């Protein structure tokens, strides 16, 4: 797979987040934190309601990077992100990325997850040997 040039935008992944999807991830990931799965508990927290797992958002980023870089992402990929804001049931999350530099055989992308209002939920960098 040829490395995309600096400035290339990766094909985005767009997902409608629902409570059912969050519950399904909680089951698969073994993370039943009530902040994600219990609306009554979550309503009493600073978030005011349930939020998606951060790792679920990273899975959307990973899907985008798998499509862009193939096995190079699976073997030698590196991701460093901060969680900026929560994704909530009803949100449409877009995982986006752009190649920002290529150095020493590594391709570095700025990556983000955004909601339908354009608010950044996750931001950081991904790096692959490509």
């Amino acid at each position, binding site marked *: 797979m040829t490395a995309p040039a600096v400035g290339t935008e990766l094909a985005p992944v767009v*997902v409608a987040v629902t409570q059912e*999807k969050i519950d*399904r*991830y909680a*089951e*698969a*990931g*073994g*993370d039943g*934190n*009530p*902040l994600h799965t219990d609306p009554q*508990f979550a309503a009493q*927290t*600073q978030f005011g309601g349930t939020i998606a*797992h*951060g*790792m*679920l958002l*990273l*899975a*959307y980023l*990973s*899907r*985008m990077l*798998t*499509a862009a870089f*193939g*096995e190079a*992402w*699976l*073997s*030698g*990929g*590196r*991701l*460093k*992100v*901060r*969680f900026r804001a929560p994704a909530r049931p009803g949100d449409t999350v877009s995982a986006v990325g752009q190649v920002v530099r290529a150095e020493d055989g590594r391709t570095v992308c700025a990556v983000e997850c955004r909601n339908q209002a354009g608010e950044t939920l996750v931001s950081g960098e991904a790096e692959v040997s490509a």
Partner: protein
Amino acid sequence: MPPRLDSLARGHELPPSAFELSPEWVGEYVGAVEDEAIASLGPELVPPMAVAALAVRALLERAVLPPGAVHIGQEITFQRAVRIGEKLSASARIVSRGERQGWLLMGIELSVEGEGGPVMEGRATLTMPVAEGTP
């Protein structure tokens, strides 16, 4: 009963947890995250974030997350691709711990090994309200 995460001191190592990447579990994970890209690479490969999810799962089996804990940062390096059927071992260690304005900030190093050597390493940063009696 596992200890609460916020009771663990810096340097504390959680015992490893063993997993097998069964076709059923991988299918469940791929369905949950709607990963349509991994199948294009072949039927046996596992999404790399599935391994990270297992590392977090291992952590949650060995330490109870306090109510209100929030994941604020994550670093992950995937050392090699993994395939359905592989047996993995995930472990975790508390590498940083600090308190600020009533919130505890913890850095947790996660690592996953397979029969062929290291598979993934990473670091999760979590914050949580300071509980009374927290050391």
